[in-house]
């Protein structure tokens, strides 16, 4: 691949265009560097010599496309990733959320659900889960299925437990899952009020008014134009004075929506609609 970098570049564009035309999944405004890595990895996994060969495969075989989608969408997450984010939510956002009789929270780009269960546990401990509807959205249907099942490996749970404690957890993390066969099955009462839905920040529009949007480590894969589109959706969805939580290295500050949000906890990337 490194022998023909210019071909690789051209072929990736063609692949992305083909995926868009055929399956309506829009990766056209994704950051190129990371996409190149994912596609190079996909070539290995599919045993394809060229991106064109990969394109032919996925264009004619929807199952192959689903496999490729798993590779392109980076399903890597952990519960209570960046514990200080959740600590800051408890301290600075929850008191405001308490003032609403009913709540809607949108986890955008929820991947395999780690962020959803983290949020549900936090809301539960703050006495808010009963009156909250959580929307958990992603573009990857297999990730959504996994999120809905809520089964995680025992290995990952060790890390989740550490994070939970650092994030201001009020109980034992083991209260929230049942251990079985080297895995942890999350308590299904946590997802009682969760709606899992296929939704794309690149192609879909707003589906509900919300009080809080949490979208972390999703926007880093978007170019500026697509980031602006996503911020536009969040802004439209959020009620007046609604909250927006982002990943540790993401900010609304350099977007077209910079003036429409104000920081609440700058270091933990929590913003509020003006």
């Amino acid at each position, binding site marked *: 691949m*490194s*022998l023909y*970098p210019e071909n690789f570049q051209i072929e990736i564009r063609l692949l992305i265009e083909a995926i868009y035309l055929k399956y309506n999944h829009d990766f056209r405004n994704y*950051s*190129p*560097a*990371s996409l*190149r*890595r*994912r596609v190079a990895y996909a070539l290995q996994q599919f045993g394809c010599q060229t991106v064109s060969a990969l394109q032919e495969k996925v264009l004619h075989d929807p199952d192959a496309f689903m496999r490729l989608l798993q590779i392109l969408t*980076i399903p*890597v*997450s952990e519960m209570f990733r960046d514990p200080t984010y959740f600590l800051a939510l408890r301290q600075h956002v929850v008191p405001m959320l308490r003032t609403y009789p009913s709540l809607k929270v949108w986890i955008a780009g929820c991947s395999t659900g780690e962020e959803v269960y983290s949020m549900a546990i936090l809301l539960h401990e703050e006495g808010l889960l009963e009156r909250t509807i959580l929307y958990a959205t992603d573009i990857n249907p297999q990730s959504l299925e996994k999120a809905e099942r809520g089964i995680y490996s025992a290995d990952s749970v060790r890390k989740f437990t550490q994070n939970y404690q650092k994030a201001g957890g009020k109980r034992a993390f083991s209260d929230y899952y049942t251990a079985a066969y080297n895995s942890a099955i999350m308590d299904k009462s946590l997802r009682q009020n969760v709606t899992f839905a296929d939704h794309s920040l690149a192609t879909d529009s707003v589906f509900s008014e919300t009080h809080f949007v949490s979208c972390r*480590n999703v926007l*880093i*894969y978007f170019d*500026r134009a697509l980031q602006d589109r996503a911020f536009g959706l969040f802004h439209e969805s959020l009620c007046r004075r609604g909250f927006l939580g982002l*990943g*540790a*290295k*993401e900010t609304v500050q*350099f977007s077209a929506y910079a003036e429409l949000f104000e920081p609440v906890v700058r270091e933990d990337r929590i913003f509020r609609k003006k």
Partner: protein
Amino acid sequence: MTTAAPTSAPRPARRFAVVVIGASAGGIEALGTVLPMLPKHYTLPVVVVLHLPADEPSLLAEVFSYKVGLATKEADEKERLQPGVIYFAPPSYHLLLEADGTFALSTEEPVHFSRPSIDVLFGSAADAYGERAVGVLLTGASQDGARGLLAIREAGGQTLAQDPAEAMISIMPAAAVELGAARAVLPLKDIGRFLAGLEKEA
């Protein structure tokens, strides 16, 4: 594939656009030798991945700001690379270079148990900058970085590895030498001199 004799630094023959440096165990000390050798008003951006325990806030930019004459900071996503600034990868993210001269971050799975990974940074530098990239691999106990350095070499860029005999931990630079990824194998002082010398090119 052969590597140049370790005694003489290669003469730079073309203009470079970026220096990428990877280091692991022993890296703080090694960088502490190399980075202060860069002159004030250095005209290249320098991008560093140093393996550190995850989940600790990185103080690298602060630590080195006292030792080097150049500005130091943690790289932000979409930030544009500026000449004469030393950037460090943020903890728990891969750091990549885009062809448009900006940074990208990623939470993809760790590579060689590392995130940030040197291979990821170097690979993206090879893709985005090709022959205008300079890659430098220093001390470490990891396999990370060797393949990335090879990618830079194959893309026509300049590649240096710290002399394994001198490195605090030789595994990482030795892996690069083994792979034929390094055009030159040099002690730290010569790496510093070479990087400082890139300055004088037209």
